[in-house]
């Protein structure tokens, strides 16, 4: 590539301050459960007080959604799944739903949300759902999300959902070159798909690799560079969630979060200690005391 090609590598503070509007229409965060969640980017968004009118939570949102909701930065969540899998329910989301009505929740499901995202990616105005959804409580609970059309091929009533084109997607790849060609070293979850679909993508990576390595193994590129607005290198950026091939999730820290966030006060002090106070990722890592970070900084092939 020409030498005068513009790099997309940015430091995390600059990437978030310049590429995330103070009030963003909609956000979709990559990863699933306790895996591949771009937590450093999410923490930076919270630190900078970015607000999100709508958060799409699917296929399986966890800590990112819970922190954003608990921090009061989300007006409306379209919920397919927010939880912590075998570790428990989402405490801040619970509090928002059970105790106050400050947040609007659209009850949805992961299949319909992924189909809505797919419709958005293809420029389809809406997605037709397979039969069966009419047997659930969803269509009664969320009548503006699940609408009906008549099937022109056989006259049957079909439920449909409007296309979703997220304004912003935050995604983690294990590696990328400076032009945004991202490499997944393990599961791609829904992240390749999300990266192809969203209006703007900010990509977080463990390490930057040379463009020559991307050219040598193009079949392993998970997301082509032109879809990324910026690439942000952060060590252990998914912590306490996992980054396949690099590190597992930190279930001690996740349990610490769940215990703390069980009360509003506990949530506030967790937020303060691990999100608002740290000046950068290194500072964050110093505050996480149950990890021997030095033991796991080895390079991954």
């Amino acid at each position, binding site marked *: 590539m020409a030498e005068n090609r513009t790099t997309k590598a940015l430091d995390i503070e600059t990437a978030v301050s310049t590429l995330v509007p103070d009030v963003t229409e909609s956000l979709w965060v990559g990863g699933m459960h306790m895996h591949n969640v771009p937590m450093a980017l999410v923490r930076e968004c919270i630190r900078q007080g970015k607000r999100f009118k709508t958060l799409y939570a699917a296929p399986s949102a966890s800590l990112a959604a819970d922190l954003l909701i608990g921090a009061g930065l989300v007006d409306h969540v379209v919920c397919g799944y927010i939880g912590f899998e075998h570790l428990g*329910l989402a405490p801040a989301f619970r509090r928002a739903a059970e105790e106050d009505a400050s947040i609007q929740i659209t009850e949805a499901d992961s299949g319909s949300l*992924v189909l809505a995202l797919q419709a958005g990616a293809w420029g389809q105005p809406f997605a037709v759902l397979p039969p069966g959804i009419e047997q659930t409580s969803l269509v009664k609970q969320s009548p503006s999300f699940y609408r009906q059309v008549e099937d022109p091929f056989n006259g049957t009533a079909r439920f449909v959902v409007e296309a979703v084109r997220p304004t912003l997607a935050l995604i983690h790849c294990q590696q990328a070159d400076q032009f945004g060609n991202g490499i997944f070293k393990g599961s791609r979850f829904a992240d390749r*798909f999300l990266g192809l679909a969203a209006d703007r993508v900010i990509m977080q990576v463990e390490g930057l690799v040379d463009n020559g390595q991307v050219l040598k193994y193009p079949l392993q590129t998970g997301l082509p560079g032109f879809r990324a607005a910026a690439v942000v290198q952060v060590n252990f950026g998914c912590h306490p969630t996992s980054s396949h091939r690099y590190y597992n999730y930190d279930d001690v820290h996740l*349990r610490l979060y769940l215990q703390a966030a069980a009360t509003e006060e506990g949530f506030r002090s967790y937020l303060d200690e691990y999100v608002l106070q740290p000046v950068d990722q290194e500072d964050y890592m110093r505050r996480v005391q149950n990890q*021997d970070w030095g033991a796991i900084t080895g390079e991954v092939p």
Partner: protein
Amino acid sequence: MSDDYKPVLRAGSDPLVFFKYPGADSEGEVARGHIMAAVMSHALRDGDVVVMGANSLIPLAAARLAQLTHAPNLTILAGASGGVNTLVEPLAPSSGDYANLIAEAVLDFPEVLMLQMGGRTDVFFAGGLQIDKQGNCNLAFTGNVSGQVTLRGPGSAGLPWAMRSGRAIVYVTSHTRKTFVEAVDFVSLPGATAEWEQGSWGGPEMVVTPLCVMDLTKQGEMRLVSLHPGVTLEDVLENTGFDLALPEEAAPITALPSPEELRILRELDPDALLVAVV
């Protein structure tokens, strides 16, 4: 898993070296998790394509056990990881774990959903905050008619599409009146629908709990099938919030895993998660 268990982050590893859990006593008791896994395994058939979602420790062990015994041509779609035919070496508590990528293929998660919703799977494993007499499952929230939410669950996830995914095997790790209710507050997974009764849709085929095995009658009512060893009929009825249908004769005792099955389950599960989970 005990609370003082402290894993460290896994160092970068090649695909055939995985995170090791501390070993557990493989000579210990037969746990409820072992019994549940074996029961589910017996419900799987050779050639089945089996898909599971979050928190699928027992289903994953069951499917791999079936593969290693009576169902060598069974296919496992290991949830969030996208792993197809993971070797389950070792059994990991999170469905998206890297351990599940010791596998034959890795699908993008939208492809897993597509196969499930498109009717390309034979068995779907599901759970819920609430399960009712008709086999409906609720993973969204509980609450009263005035709209007050009493327990906010994660959301309906992939449950609404269970009827498109073949036979649903419902499982829970706690059997109480809070879980087994007369009617769920919210239907995430439709149970005995008219289409299910006519045989044109899939639906709940079996319900496995730490106390017993149940199924649905042809009329779509939940019925006791067998009691786990040491569990009485009264234990089950006291902990079930609706009138459970009973088999015509006294319910038998759930079969224990065979010695071979137990050996396999323990080999897959060096951390004895199946002992800790229930």
